[in-house]
């Protein structure tokens, strides 16, 4: 597929991201305001009394030991948890001031605005082109030219364009794991969400792919809010602007322990268990 003549190579990500989200004053409203959230699967409590404001457009990392509810928290933010069981919540989650659990919410529009990338790459058994066009096609018919441009922009902002541009009709199952994960990121970006949730996106990948994905964050951070759950503390330190530390105890209920700018959390955290976790005393 030939790139359009008037797209300068160095501006390609800018062109895509220009159309991504309207200008939001970073000081006005957090992307996600979580107030006293408690999350239940049926009667089993998984998260308790979480409150935090996720700022926009920044990269927020969520760290913590295994089983402390980080992934569950992420799934509560775009209501994907509801596919896995009966969900009950107390408290509130607001997306740019709108309650996402209210009855009036169209859950599909919500999930389009808050995209998600999963731990294991899960491309559809379709071609690369069709994978990226999947989300776009759900929301309406677009001409082939428009679709071509959207696919190209999405692949470029996921840093995958140069590797697959020669054969977009190739099956998505035939590319490597790192490429598949970048494809999933491109697929999520193609519907132009305001927030991107990433659940340990690099844990199943080799170091080179991980590095390529971390480079992506540099371009994404100006326009999108990213919330990334990661087991890898060094990754959180490298990549994020804000960090949240989750922890659990014998009750197996997840709680937010501390939230703040990454530099502060990693150097002089307020809470002692945060400091212990950062220093590797447990985890």
């Amino acid at each position: 597929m030939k790139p359009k003549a008037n797209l300068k190579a160095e501006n390609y990500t800018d062109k895509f991201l220009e159309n991504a989200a309207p200008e939001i004053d970073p000081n006005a409203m957090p992307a996600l305001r979580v107030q006293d959230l408690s999350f239940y699967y049926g009667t089993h409590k998984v998260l308790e009394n979480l409150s935090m404001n996720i700022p926009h457009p920044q990269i927020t990392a969520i760290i913590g030991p295994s089983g402390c509810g980080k992934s569950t928290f992420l799934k509560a933010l775009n209501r994907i948890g509801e596919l896995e069981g009966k969900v009950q919540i107390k408290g509130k989650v607001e997306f740019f001031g709108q309650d996402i659990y209210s009855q009036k919410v169209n859950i599909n529009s919500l999930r389009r605005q808050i995209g998600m990338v999963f731990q294991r790459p899960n491309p559809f058994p379709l071609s690369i082109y069709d994978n990226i066009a999947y989300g776009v096609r759900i929301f309406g018919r677009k001409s082939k030219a428009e679709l071509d441009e959207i696919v190209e922009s999405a692949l470029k902002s996921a840093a995958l364009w140069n590797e697959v541009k020669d054969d977009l009709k190739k099956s998505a199952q035939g590319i490597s794991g790192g490429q598949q994960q970048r494809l999933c990121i491109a697929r999520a970006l193609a519907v132009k969400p305001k927030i991107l949730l990433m659940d340990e996106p690099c844990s199943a990948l080799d170091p080179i792919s991980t590095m390529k994905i971390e480079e992506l964050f540099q371009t994404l951070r100006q326009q999108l809010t990213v919330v990334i759950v990661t087991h890898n503390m060094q990754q959180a330190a490298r990549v994020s602007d804000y960090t949240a530390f989750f922890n659990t105890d014998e009750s197996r209920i997840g709680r937010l322990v501390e939230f703040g700018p990454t530099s502060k959390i990693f150097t002089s955290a307020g809470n002692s268990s945060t400091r212990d976790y950062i220093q590797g005393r447990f985890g």
Partner: protein
Amino acid sequence: MTQAKKLDSILDAEINNPLSLSRTLFSRGMTVIAFALTALALLPLFAILYKILGEGLTHLSWEVLVSLPAPVGVEDQPNGFANAILGTILMVGIATLISVPIGVMTGIFLSEFGRENKVITNSIRFITVILSSVPSIVIGVFSYALIVVTTKAFSSLAGGFALGIIMLPVVALTTEQALKLVPTSYRLASAALGGGRFQTMFRTIVPSALPTITTGILLAASRAAGETAPLIVTALSSQFWPPLIDKLGEIMQSPIGAETISKLKEIPETLLTPTPSMSVLIYSYASSPYKEQNELAWTAASVLLGMVLIASVASRTVTRKRLQNR
């Protein structure tokens, strides 16, 4: 002292110890028994194939596959059972048209809404399983009461309807199984992109499960093609071409115009006449007193076996092609 202790420990670490004799004999004996019983299980299949193909292939010819039955004893007219072949295809076709939409939708309901309302879906699944074990003659009699009595005719419609009911539970249950085998990750990915239930189902899950569903449909059709009892009480038999074929021939031979529409409207009528089928033909020819018809019964059995074999091979080819495309 330590020398003796060392030797002991080396002998304990012996890895070339053979099994005791009784154990070895037992193990070998069980292997032999397993192979022997497998061969025994395959024996009836090979015996059937040998007998049927042996007797039937001798009289198989092109004439048999394309001609109508001739009166017994008449030598100069071509004799065959082409009308029965077409009749079977017609009625299995009607059965497929009835059972596939209903069965696939039922399978989708069972797999998609299964998590939410366990009581209803378990009941539906239970009823479907029961339906699959209803004797085929009972289904035939049901179709007789429903269609033959009300339309006052034995017909291919009634026969196709009975076969459709026989196929329905198989299609529904295999569809449900096929959909359950699709990885949950596709469902999550589609939902995370904003896909609603309908979108996720028909853009991702059903296409992924399609090869398995197709196999299920073809196997159900093969089974239906061999059913005899329900067809005896619903479609009876006939010595002539199924009228649908005549009507289609008429339509294709005349020029396209206003007449075509009126002829198309006459098609449903053509389904309301007695229709021949392979299974009923085999039954009546095998029990007839005429030797020529007995011989043709063997041939018809071989042809029916061949049709079922082609359907199975076709289903495997479809599955393999789909899996290669991924």
